[in-house]
């Protein structure tokens, strides 16, 4: 398994969901195939958060919800310097959290 981020596509109705569920929110079917989540989209909302969880040594973290062009929405870290609502971004994979020895990989957004 690579470090890609995966959602699921319902084997019955074809709905793509991210994150994964055990049951399709659209049709209640229970079998799926993995689909890679990512691509281009636009910033739906963002924040600079100073109230951080443990394991972050930065002063603040810039988080965003991005709506990808395929309609899927994702939460991740926005690396751009001057964010605006609606700005075009694309996803990249990077280390989003350091948990002990483990560097957790996830979605980050940069200007498209």
């Amino acid at each position, binding site marked *: 398994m690579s470090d890609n981020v995966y959602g699921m596509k319902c084997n019955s109705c074809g709905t793509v969901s991210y*994150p994964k569920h055990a049951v399709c929110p659209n049709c209640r079917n229970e079998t799926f195939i993995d689909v890679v989540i990512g691509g281009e989209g636009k910033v*739906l*909302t963002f*924040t600079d958060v*100073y109230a951080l969880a443990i394991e972050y040594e930065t002063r603040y973290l810039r988080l965003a*919800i991005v709506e990808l062009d395929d309609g899927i*929405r994702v*939460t991740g870290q926005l690396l751009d310097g001057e964010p605006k609502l609606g700005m075009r971004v694309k996803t990249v994979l990077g280390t989003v*959290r350091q948990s002990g020895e483990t560097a957790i990989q996830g979605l980050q957004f940069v200007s498209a």
Partner: protein
Amino acid sequence: MNPVYIAGAGMTRFGRSEWSLMQLASVASLAALHHANLGDIPVDGVVVANMGAARMNRQTALGSALVDQLALYPAAAESVENGPASGASAFKVGVQAIASGMADVVLITGVERMRVVNGLEGTDFVSSLSHPEAEYIYGVTLPALAGMFARLFMDKFGVERKHLAMVAIKNHANAAKNPYAHIQQTVTMEGILTLPEAAVNNPPIAEPLHMFDCCPVSDGGASLVLVSETVAAKIGGPKVRVAGIGQATDTHTVHEREDPTDLKSVRIAAGIAFDRAGLTPQDVDVAELHDAFTILEIAESEASGFFPRGEGHKALERGETQLDGTLPINPSGGLKAKGHPVGATGVAQLVELTWQLRGECDARQVKDAKVAYACNFGGFGNNVVASVLQREA
């Protein structure tokens, strides 16, 4: 469903406390038990609302521990957790115990002791309610979710930072009249927004939210005594009836919601609660809303049905939600200024409303309050409990 009454309500002062978790729980419980004046009628059940003791206080099985503190054996006991809505969930569980006929007297005690860990650890703990793979690993915290929600909501409906400040100013003013509140200091628009020093007084927490948009981290306990109709008749005194409870869940991640600014779970929970009560939002005389962040008071006041969507900030601006307005919201000071010991919060909202319905709130008493409403907001809106209480003549 058998009718259920709130016979007693009590709490500790919220704030930083030197008391142990069990002392906070015991003091609140005894205050409620004394208030209820049960005499020799035994307590059948104890439900503790708590979110963080296992991690922050290294203690579990709080229901049994509280029974032991209060020497209530062999009363049934357990703990209920539903994130920041743990309090109202525990209340619902207690109500169902009585409504089912399996209990006559149930003590509900919400408690949290958070100041024992540092801020990072506390923030991280609460963020453990977010989605483990799609939110938590990114450093998502509750303030972050609130900041993203606020930015979108404000953009959509023309809400400005001054409106958020109005919520804070109102709730701090109310808390200054509440001896149980964590923060009893009033704030002004100048001090937190318009003067140059406001930037220092009121630093950003999760843009566009600043420090005075966020509730403090508090220790505290709050308790209710629930009784059946038979017991309510036996003990006499003012009758506060649980008119209706509604609960609704939504997607775990905020991003999966069709409209992330729509508090659908609040809308559904409030709808169920009012339906069961046979009442409408227009019947409500006083409300406690879950203002962990100022923006939430505005959004919940709409989703609960008090104001049309996008107009909560206008009602606020018109003063309608002030203590002397047409619908006073958060007379206690709210989470914003009364404080937010997570597990205790939902219980404390109902403690305030019980006191309001009994006319026991002194300087912050809402006149002639007969119907009261509480919204306890769990997760970031993925699990909401709405409650309607009614004073019987």
